[in-house]
């Protein structure tokens, strides 16, 4: 049986930042990877394939927000058989995806640390409807005051017990956002280091519940605002695509405000995130 010709080699690798917003926060990682593969085809992007009987497009994902969690900062890497203008790929791929899966930024990979290695921490926004700011504030204070907060989560490997405190490098109430919200709620912003086992926003919530009487009446609305290298001094997250962006003049590569207002209103308005200008 013929094996077919050897697949064309990778000529260009592109790193892509994308968002999942609004209703599409309910997509699973598998749903997203199917949608991206189809969008790549629709957009006519010359994606490279693996060899073998059932070739796979060369698209790899660095982490992925859980089903139900919205995100402004998901990352993938795609191998092309031919060089393409990143700005055009951004526009074409975005147009080929359903609204709510939005391509924010595309840069050519220039080597250096792998994308996964650069994604050291995440900034999360957690909106708790029906929770008073006072209750949330007390919980956050108690949480930050503790050294270790052991929580349990049912994983595929069974019930696991781990510390949810030490991975959290910052946790504050976002008063400006709460004032702008349409219903009474508490809104938290936190920076959580990626660790093993992974501490997820719901683990932090479990911890908050354990150290106080915080009891949100409905499931939290969680949004990942950013991912990247964590600056130990400032506690801020840097843009993980910056090291790849050398060719782009400074000033145009900085990410704009992450569009907090649109995130809070369910992501239905246009986000304030833009990619590097051509």
């Amino acid at each position, binding site marked *: 049986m*013929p*094996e077919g010709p050897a697949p064309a080699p990778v000529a260009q690798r592109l790193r892509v930042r994308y968002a999942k917003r609004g209703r599409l926060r309910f997509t699973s990682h598998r749903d997203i990877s199917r949608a991206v593969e189809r969008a790549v085809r629709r957009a006519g992007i010359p994606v490279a394939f693996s060899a073998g009987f059932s070739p796979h497009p060369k698209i790899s994902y660095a982490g992925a927000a859980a089903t*139900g969690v919205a995100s402004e900062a998901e990352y993938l890497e795609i191998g092309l058989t031919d060089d393409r203008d990143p700005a055009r790929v951004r526009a074409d791929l975005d147009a080929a995806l*359903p609204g709510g899966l939005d391509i924010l930024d595309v840069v050519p990979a220039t080597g250096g640390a792998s994308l996964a290695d650069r994604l050291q921490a995440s900034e999360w926004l957690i909106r708790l409807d029906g929770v008073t700011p006072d209750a949330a504030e007390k919980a956050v204070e108690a949480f930050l005051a503790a050294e270790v907060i052991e929580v349990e989560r049912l994983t595929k490997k069974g019930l696991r017990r781990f510390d949810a405190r030490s991975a959290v490098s910052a946790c504050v109430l976002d008063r400006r956002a709460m004032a702008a919200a349409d219903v009474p709620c508490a809104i938290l912003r936190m920076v959580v280091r990626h660790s093993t086992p992974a501490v997820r926003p719901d683990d932090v919530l479990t911890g908050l519940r354990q150290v106080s009487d915080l009891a949100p009446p409905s499931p939290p609305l969680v949004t990942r605002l950013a991912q990247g290298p964590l600056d130990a001094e400032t506690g801020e997250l840097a843009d993980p695509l910056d090291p790849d962006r050398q060719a782009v003049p400074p000033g145009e590569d900085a990410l704009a405000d992450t569009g907090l207002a649109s995130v809070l209103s369910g992501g239905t308005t246009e986000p304030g995130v833009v990619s590097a200008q051509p």
Partner: protein
Amino acid sequence: MPVESVFPRLEPFLPTVQKPIQYVGGELNSLVKDWDEAEVRWALMYPDAYEVGLPNQGVQILYEILNERDGVLAERTYSVWPDLETIMRREGIPQFTVDGHRPVGAFDIFGISFSTELGYTNMLTALDLAGIPMLATDRTDEHPIVLAGGHAAFNPEPIADFLDAAVLGDGEEIALAITEVVREWKREGSPGGRDELLMRLAKSGGVYVPKFFDVSYLPDGRIQRVAPNRSGVPWRVDKHTVMDLDAWPYPKKPLVPLAETVHERFSVEIFRGCTRGCRFCQAGMITRPVRERSITTIGNMVETGLKESGFTEVGLLSLSSADHSEIGEIAKGLADQYEGTQTSLSLPSTRVDAFNITLANEFSRGGRRSGLTFAPEGGSERMRKVINKMVTEDDLIRTVTTAYENGWRQVKLYFMCGLPTEEDEDVMAIAGMARRVIQAGREATGRRDIRCTVSIGGFVPKPHTPFQWAAQCDAETVDRRLFALKDTLRKDKEYGRAIGLRYHDGKPSIIEGLLSRGDRRVGAVIRKVWEDGGRFDGWSEHFSYERWMSAAAEVFADGPVDLDWFTVREREEVEVLPWDHLDAGLDREWLWQDWQDAIDLDSEEVEDCRWTPCYDCGVCPTMGTEIQIGPTGKKLLPLSVISG
């Protein structure tokens, strides 16, 4: 009254249900039109889970055709799983569409497409959640017209009490015609309320309105008469046949789901209808005559469909796709055009001949040759003659030998169990056939890793077929024969391990039989089952035979009829059948004669009227239709240049 999206009320609960993505809509190529600008609004339902319902071609085609029209809006809704149903009841969230998340009860028409009768209980869930009274006679002008279509609508009598209307046959033209009647009526200010609207629809003879017909019964339980109960309603209701498939090249913009569904591909229907004359096959009987889509239209549809969807697989659908008059050119043309583009082509075909393998080879160029499917349907020569599936065992062996020689390693064989006049030995003959298949494969290839999978479905006699009069085989007999077959294969040291056997027990077939050939008295059983918690009857993990049995026993307790009466009883020629007033075009005398021929060993084979003279089944003259086949001699070209 403003119609608001229920999504804000639904969203907080979505994180707690299984696969929430199935309820959010937003698929590529879906759209939400302005509610207030629309004059006629359709909610289209496929009464099963989203993963099964979304790929349904009928719903996708109607969705697109209706939304293309000005002033017409169509949205889709699917069955919600019990976890969400519980929440919706608790929170008072109505059945909603996935497009605009609008309450189904707010639409003008609630159209439900039934490919199987096992979706009936799911329809009741949807009506109930939508706040639409279950009985048509309890509905007011506030409620949508509940309209059934799809193959099961050729005998909608078991759900007649729950329906306002039903349509038979191809949906494209009649859906638009109904839309215009509704538009007219609404523009006039909805004179006479829903009854006048239903009357306008019924008058044409193209829409069945069950409540305009009365059914009377004889003391022994048989139907005495089905007659219109008001003047102006024709005695018979006709099926609809689209004669020019090239004029309806849908779907043009296939819906691409985010959730995983049962068919992840772009499907093109390459022809409708089938005249092979297999007596068990309702689809073949009710979709006559054959109407082909031309090779040029097929090529264009594949090209647009792939471009619009990004799918990597194309399915060429029909009842017997290898029978298209230009399938060879289509297969080669598509294989040439998409070679090297990581696009796979599939052609569901179960024909037992070498041509099938030629096509399969074409479609698997450069790829893995995993499995080929053939459908002899009956295990013995005699059985195949009864069902008019004229394939000899030698034909089959010759064909599978060629398949194995061409690199195919696995062969799937489809059969039915419980066919009319079937004896134990007819089912046992399946084992003999499977052994010969393995033997032929081993000889042809010199290898031992040859596999054959035998799949067996329970036969259910269906309305509008020659077997509509036949007694259905009882579940115990079916189970006994299947068990004996399994036992024989298990004990077979030489071949047993190379043969896989797949089948279901005979019980679900009995319930399908009740729902297929039932009359209006069966409606109470469906309702009882639903009240007892019956949902998703097409799913073995949800189906409960006991629930159906006890509901039937309770409902039929005092009457002259029971479950057996509807299923395992043979009917006589003179008996009025519940669907006799619904016209699929088939001549009743022809059907009866074909049934007599089936059980007469000396009768002649019925050939395919595509290639032999018309044998007067009645469809073409009654429906004003004719066979439409090629070859057209046209080419798959013009191909667009694929720019890099």
